[in-house]
Every structure is written in C-alpha cells, then in structure tokens.
C-alpha cells in the first residue's frame, strides 16, 4: 500500500472513468434498440458488438463511417446525439489523465517511488549525504572512489538537478525533500543494515543537531558526521553521540598554530588528509607579532589556541560587544576599530608586525585590509581564508601569502573519518606531538617509503587476516614484524612503517615492530603498494604466511591433501 502515485491517479480518475462508461452505455443502448435497415431493405437490430465497435471509433473521433449498413435517419439522429455525448466524455477523461501526469504532487510522488526503488537496489555499503553543495560534492566523489555508494537528500530542486548533471557512477539517487524530515530519512534507508552513516554539513547548527537526534532515533547504530561552529553546539552534538564533529573554525585555528609552531606536523596532517605529499613545500609561518582582524567565531577559536602559545598577537574587532566577555588582564590583546582604516592598522603596530590575518566575515573587506597593510609594511605576511571552493577564486589572484581553505580539510576529515577511521584517529593523536617528533617521522617516512606513502588499515580478524587469527588462536605469539617481510625474499624487508595500533580503546602511536599481535587489533600502516600487496598475502594466504613465518614452502602432501 506504499505506492501512493498509483492511488492518486486512480482516485482522481474515478469520475472521468464513470463518465466514459456511462456515455458509452447510453450511446450503445440507443444504437442497439433503434431499428435499422440492411442492404436488402429488411429490418434489423445492431448487435452489441456492432454498436460497441461503432461507438469506439466515433467517440475517439476516428470515424470509419456507417457499419455494417448505411444508417436510417432515426439512427443518424441518435448518432448525432451520441457523438457529442461520447466525444465530450472521452476528451474529459483524457484531459484529466494528462492533467494528472503534469500534476506536481503526482510527479514528486513518482520521483519518490523511483528514489525508493533505487535505494532498495543498493546492496553495498552506502552513506546518506544531506544537502548538495561544493563540499558534499567533493565528499560524494571521494566516497564513490572508495567503492561506497551515496544517497542524497536535497531541499532545492535546482541543486538536485545539478547533482543529476554531475553524472556520478554508480548513480547517486537524490530525493527532493527537507533533510530533517524523518520520512525522507526513512525513505533514504537510514534503518537499512548496509546504510553506514549520515553526513549533515549545514551551516545552521540547530538543523544539524535536529538531524542528529532524528537519525539517532531512527537507527541507534548509525554513524553521524556533522559540522559545528560553536563550542556549545559541539557539546550538544556530543550528547547525542555524534561520531564525527568537524569544526571548520577550529580546523583553521589549529592549522594556523601548526604553521607557526610545528610546520612538519601540518605537513603530516595534510598528507593524512591526502591534500599534499610529504615532499611539498614546508608551509612555515615565522614567530613574531600577529595582527588578527575580526573576533567572531573563528577569532574566538584562534584566541583559544594562541593564548597558550608564546606568540605575540593583537585582535582588531569593529564591534565592541564581541569582546565584552574577555577578562580585563587579557584586554591588551584587543583593539576596537575598523581594521580597514589605515590609522587603526598603524595603531595596532602594522609597521613592525610579522603577519596580518584578515578573518572578518566579508571577503572584499579582507582583501582590502591586506592590501592596505601591505602598502604600509612591504614585508608583512598576508593571511586570508577562503570558504568556498570555486573555480575562479578572487583570493588566488589577490597575491595572498598564505591562504587557508577549511573546506578542503573539512571534506577530507569527514571522508577519512568515515572510510578510514584509523587515520583520523592518528591525525588527532599526533596533534599533541611537537615539531621535532614530526620532522623525524616525516624524514623516516620519506626515507623508508616515498613522498606519498599509502595508508593501509588492517584489522586482525577472520575477515581481513584469517591466517594471523588462526595462528594466534593456536596460542602462538606473533609480532608486528611479520608484515615487514618481503615475499620475494624473506631476508629482505619491505618498506613499512606502523603508525598506529588500536587495542580495546587503547591507542599506541608508532608501535614498535616487536609488538605482539592480539586478536581484534586495529593497525594503521604506512607502506608502498608492493608492501601492501605482500601484507595482504601474508595475512590471508596459508602458503605465503607459512613462507613468511618459517622461510619454507608449505607442502600439501606431508600433512595430507586437505589439511
């Protein structure tokens, strides 16, 4: 009984159908009851079939002429009446049907049915993405590349059409509906077992929270990934157990801190999020005086990060109310005024500042501030952010020294957390490390592997590593170093650097190769493609595993054919 569209048609077609039936009946009854004359002049009555045949082609205005014999005048009088009666009935019926086919409600009903069918046909893992824009577009592409299917719910029909034009393979079913609508989520298959996650990256924090709650209620095991821009909404989202919370402002703040304090850490993070390779140019910002324009949500995040660092900084904010909450002893870090004015910039000390950061919520003002600052102090480093990933960027043409693109990190953070949860954990775990540690790791990765090592996740379970599991279950000990062995020659070693070991909630960063493996260990390894291939063989193939373990070829015949 779910097939609404058919019922709408049927309900609305009742009257037209009855009109057609009744008019046909009247016309047919008249024809069979009126006397006719056949070719020989004998009286005859039309049969029911004759009458039906005649009326069928008359009502549809096809008109084959008078059959089976020429009509008498009394018959013609009746036919004249019937023509008007049945043709009008027929046109009314057809007209209603065509009107229905163009009905918005009916069309959206058809689209719903189609969407539902497409969702039901998905057999692989899939993820529901809410809203279609440049960020979710990137996420969808990444997910599809990783063999995860996507279903989209988008409110605006225009953007839903834009999605259809993207021509993803496999097809991404899209439903035009409000994203917080429980019915829409249900229709998108949120309760299905192969639906793994819901991604909701709206600007509106309340909407994200609402979606998180609705999704949680519909499926308590589903993963949720959302965006939050204030710390209170982050806490609210944590209360409903949202798995991935991305805050673009704290992303920028942390990136700024890393660029100043530990550029190698930033490099590692960019590599994990697949934005850059390890041999990319080191994006280092010098220590010195920073002028930061704008103290909104982003400014607050930066303030939280910088106040604990040994960096001189001053905020310029146009709105006095924004800095009311700041304690008095901190107030010398703040100035009230329009950062776009030369005097204010001079007062803030732009002449001897190292860098100026323009983070107000107006792009043109930001560019103007940076241009003014550059005029006063030629050597100042200009820093801006670009929210939208568009083809033509005004920032890239404005010769900004350092440009933050939180959207890029947001995309990669979300997809990584959903597809490769371990690398996301690793990225979070290294945040507390220092520059020295990071530079050593970068060096080691570059030397042992290459500039862009593959991140490979392996879980010691029967699905991914049955050989290792069997071996451990037979109460043997096996160390992580087994994965280092080259299958070409056991004495040689593959290029593998273990990055992370997760064992029952405990996280070990850079586990040593002597670590003894246990069941359900989750490993994150950096390696090259050849090594990844070998590791998969060792984990799953009895012959290769035996060779890696003992250096001997396993033979079938010694132990019997099937054991």
């Amino acid at each position: 009984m779910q097939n609404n569209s058919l019922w709408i048609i049927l309900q609305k077609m009742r009257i037209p159908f009855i009109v057609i039936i009744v008019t046909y009946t009247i016309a047919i009854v008249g024809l069979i009851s009126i006397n006719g004359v056949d070719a020989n002049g004998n009286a005859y009555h039309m049969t029911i079939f004759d009458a039906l045949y005649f009326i069928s082609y008359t009502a549809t205005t096809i008109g084959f002429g008078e059959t089976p014999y020429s009509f008498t005048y009394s018959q013609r009088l009746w036919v004249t009446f019937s023509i008007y009666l049945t043709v009008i009935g027929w046109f009314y019926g057809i007209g209603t049907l065509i009107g229905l086919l163009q009905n918005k409600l009916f069309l959206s009903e058809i689209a719903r049915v189609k969407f539902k069918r497409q969702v039901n046909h998905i057999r692989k893992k899939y993820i529901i993405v809410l809203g279609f824009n440049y960020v979710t577009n990137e996420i969808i592409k990444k997910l599809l590349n990783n063999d995860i299917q996507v279903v989209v719910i988008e409110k605006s029909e225009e953007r839903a059409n834009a999605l259809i034009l993207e021509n993803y393979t496999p097809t991404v079913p899209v439903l035009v509906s409000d994203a917080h609508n429980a019915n829409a989520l249900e229709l998108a298959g949120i309760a299905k077992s192969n639906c793994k996650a819901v991604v909701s990256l709206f600007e509106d924090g309340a909407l994200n929270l609402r979606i998180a709650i609705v999704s949680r209620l519909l499926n308590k095991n589903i993963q949720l990934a959302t965006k939050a821009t204030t710390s209170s909404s982050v806490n609210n989202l944590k209360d409903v157990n949202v798995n991935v919370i991305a805050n673009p402002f704290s992303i920028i703040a942390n990136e700024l801190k890393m660029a100043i304090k530990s550029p190698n850490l930033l490099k590692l993070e960019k590599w994990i999020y697949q934005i850059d390779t390890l041999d990319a140019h080191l994006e280092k910002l010098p220590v010195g005086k920073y002028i930061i324009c704008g103290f909104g949500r982003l400014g607050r995040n930066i303030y939280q990060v910088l106040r604990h660092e040994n960096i001189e900084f001053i905020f310029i904010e146009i709105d006095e109310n924004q800095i009311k909450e700041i304690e008095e002893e901190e107030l010398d870090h703040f100035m009230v005024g329009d950062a776009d004015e030369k005097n204010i910039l001079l007062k803030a000390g732009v002449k001897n500042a190292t860098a100026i950061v323009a983070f107000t919520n107006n792009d043109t003002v930001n560019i103007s501030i940076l241009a003014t600052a550059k005029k006063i102090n030629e050597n100042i480093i200009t820093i801006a952010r670009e929210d939208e990933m568009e083809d033509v960027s005004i920032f890239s043409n404005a010769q900004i020294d350092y440009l933050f693109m939180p959207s890029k990190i947001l995309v990669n953070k979300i997809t990584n957390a959903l597809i490769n949860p371990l690398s996301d954990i690793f990225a979070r775990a290294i945040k507390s490390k220092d520059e020295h540690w990071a530079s050593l790791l970068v060096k080691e990765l570059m030397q042992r592997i290459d500039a862009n090592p593959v991140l490979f996740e392996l879980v010691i379970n029967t699905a991914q590593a049955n050989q290792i599991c069997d071996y451990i279950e037979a109460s043997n000990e096996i160390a992580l170093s087994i994965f280092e062995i080259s299958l070409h020659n056991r004495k040689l070693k593959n290029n593998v650097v273990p990055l992370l070991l997760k064992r029952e909630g405990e996280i070990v960063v850079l586990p040593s190769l002597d670590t003894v493996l246990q069941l359900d260990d989750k490993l994150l390894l950096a390696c090259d493609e050849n090594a990844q291939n070998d590791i998969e063989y060792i984990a799953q193939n009895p012959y290769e595993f035996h060779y890696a373990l003992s250096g001997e070829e396993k033979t079938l015949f010694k132990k019997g054919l099937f054991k």
Partner: protein
Amino acid sequence: MNLDKVISGFFIILAMTLNFGFFYGDLDSLESHSKYELFAAIIVNLIATTLKLGDRTQMGSVLLATSLVADIQLIAAAVVWSIAYYVYVIDKEIVAIIISLSGGALLANITSVALYVGETLKSKR
C-alpha cells in the same frame, strides 16, 4: 445517511444481481441467457469497479480485487461469445464456457457484496 455509500452500495449489489440474472437458467443452452443482461452486467460491474478505485484501506483493496475478478470473467464471457458468433460457431463447449465464466464472476460478486455488507455493519457511523 451517506450518499456516497448509497451509490456505491447500489452499484455493487446491482452488479451481483444482474450477474445472477444472467447466470440463472439452463446450463447448456443460451436461450435462457440474454446477451443484453450480460451487457448490463458488464457495464454495472465496470462502474462498481471504478467507484472502488483509489480507496487505500485494506478493505478497499480487497473489494477492488473482487470487482476486477468479476470484470475480467464477464468481459471474457462477452469476448468468447462475440468471437464465436462472428468468426466461429456457438457449440455446446462455447455455451458452457460463457455460462461458467459468468458463474465465476457471480462468485466474485457475492464475495464483494459479503465484504461490503460486513464492512458496513462494522462501521459505527
């Protein structure tokens, strides 16, 4: 009193009675079976079916199904009769087919009326 109920009840019961009227009579000759009565039965059955369209309740769906069964059987009887009359000869076998088809339709119509009456009795308004 609900005018909709009167109309649909009228057509559903009329469909059954006309069907019975056609079916009743000698089983191996068409003399006691009027083609006009079959025509009327088909028309009334079609109208009854149309009136049941678009009712999304469980009962509505079952009623629609029984009506469709009756329609198909009666129309099949009419088609067999026309083909035999114009193209072939009406022999005993054809007569048996026509009458047994309408008998089947009668059963469907009886089911339909029984359900309809049951539904009406259950209704509190």
